[in-house]
């Protein structure tokens, strides 16, 4: 299939460029690392309380939130790179080739997912000496969820970037979306400890269910309804994200 070959070509080009300038990927990782070292210890004494006795391992509660956060924020800002490519004329040059429009997006999204998974693995390794313990199966499945989440947010970010074509529009837009998503997802603290109205509000956010799912996976409850719902939501999000992205890349103004 041509589209796979073309995706591979675009992926290779993007990956080569990312590796030439790895600072950005390193900077994106520094944020969750700071949370890990500067916020994580605060959770230790209250873990049993906030997890309502499900675990006493603070990092089993906290790390799932952090990797979902990384999946979201790590991929959310890739649109800035696309605007830079647009300004340099690269997108236009890509679009005059006979290559599939979907491949032009998919190759870039694939690069973002690979970078993201590498960042996540580094984050997990850094959490090991702090006392993170989790079953292999749960961690692997969580990595898949993070990868899918990354693909979703990367596609959406590219889509918005192509429509706005301006960093000035993209930055406040992304931040405006990111803040409520972060606060309502229970990434930092589980939503169960909040008042009922806040819990109900957070139930609307699919990300909250994803975080709850990844927490269950880290406890080893792979077949629990929480993990299955988490998987369901992330797959649905990915389908929507990729469809929106593909549509924008296909559209004439892209």
């Amino acid at each position, binding site marked *: 299939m041509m589209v796979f070959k073309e995706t591979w070509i675009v992926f290779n*080009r993007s990956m080569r460029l990312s590796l030439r300038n790895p600072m950005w990927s390193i900077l994106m990782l520094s944020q969750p690392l700071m949370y890990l070292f500067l916020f994580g210890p605060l959770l230790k004494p209250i873990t049993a309380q906030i997890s309502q006795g499900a675990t006493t391992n603070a990092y089993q509660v906290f790390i799932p939130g952090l990797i979902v956060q990384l999946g979201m924020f790590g991929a959310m800002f890739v649109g800035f790179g696309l605007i830079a490519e647009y300004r340099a004329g690269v997108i236009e*040059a*890509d679009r005059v080739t*006979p290559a599939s429009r979907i491949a032009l997006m998919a190759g870039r999204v694939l690069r973002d997912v690979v970078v993201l998974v590498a960042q996540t693995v580094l984050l997990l390794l850094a959490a090991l000496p702090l006392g993170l313990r989790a079953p292999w199966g749960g961690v692997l499945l969580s990595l898949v969820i993070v990868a899918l989440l990354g693909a979703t947010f990367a596609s959406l970010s590219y889509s918005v970037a192509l429509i706005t074509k301006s960093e000035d529009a993209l930055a406040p837009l992304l931040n405006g979306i990111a803040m409520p998503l972060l606060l309502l997802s229970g990434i930092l603290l589980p939503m169960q400890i909040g008042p009922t109205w806040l819990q109900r509000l957070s139930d609307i956010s699919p990300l909250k269910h994803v975080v709850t799912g990844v927490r269950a996976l880290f406890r080893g409850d792979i077949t629990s309804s929480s993990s299955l719902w988490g998987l369901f939501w992330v797959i649905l999000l990915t389908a929507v994200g990729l469809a929106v992205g593909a549509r924008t890349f296909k559209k004439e103004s892209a």
Partner: protein
Amino acid sequence: MLISQTARMMIEARGLVRTFKTKRGPVQAVQGVDLTVADGEIVGFLGPNGAGKTTTMRMLATLIKPTSGTATVAGCDLAKDPVGVRRRIGYVAQSGSTLPEAIAGDEVVDHARLYGVDKKKAIADGQALFEQLDLPGLWRRQCKTLSGGQRRRLDIVMGLIHDPKLIFLDEPTTGLDPQARANLWEHIRRLRERGATIFLTTHYLDEADALCDRILVIDHGKIVGAGKPEELKQQVSGDAVRLSLADASQAPSVTKVVQELPGAVAVETDGDVVAFRIPKGGSVLPSLLRSIDAQGIELDGVEVHRPTLDDVFLTMTGRSLRDEDIPATDEKEAVA
């Protein structure tokens, strides 16, 4: 007969219209453009900023869809087979085509591979084009380290890498210094020797004049004139002739002689200078000078100027191409 004629046309567009939605309402950037470009021609699209040149070119290169109208480009129907068009054309955009951080050769090879050229051939062809376009030793250089002229030639390499039959060049020399421009013109002329057809946009008259076999003048989204540079210039009422007199008091008698010349128009007297326009100024000059001499009038100097494309543009549109305050449609805003 009809088929063979069509086959020799690289571009045939009929009634191309493009309307952009903007905050201030719809703007018709291109208002019914018909054009044909024959195989092997260099055709220039001349017009001020915002005249619809780039929009028309982007439509022909499959980057935006016409609001209405049809076109056959490089033998493929624009609406039905855009992928076929893309395979056969090269497009060099005004904005460039490479990322500043990327390695020049890598960008060329990846671009070629998106056309289905295999890696080995892409490297061989790319390096050969680097030689031809005066970019020796720059294959492994970061794009941002290249000069403006080199970067532009790199864009052209990107556009040529799959050996297209038809090449679109959007404002190829904008922003280059005079030497780099002249050098690039040389390269563009050589592209034709490879058998390529070239369609370029420019708002430089000298560029259109120096490069193009044929010029299409576009203004406010409509083609207002077309022809060879020489033909277009002849449409302007002749050459400009200036006679400088030794004695200003003799100006009325010279004016009288000039006014009797068949074809002389726009006769103006300014002190000791008599200026007028006349077709084929060079050939009427000898007899004119004899009759002035016969009246015992002494001349200080004679100048004959061939009309420039600037004069052509002025005649066709009523304004100069050099007017910078032409209200331009902001195409980027409009596209979004």
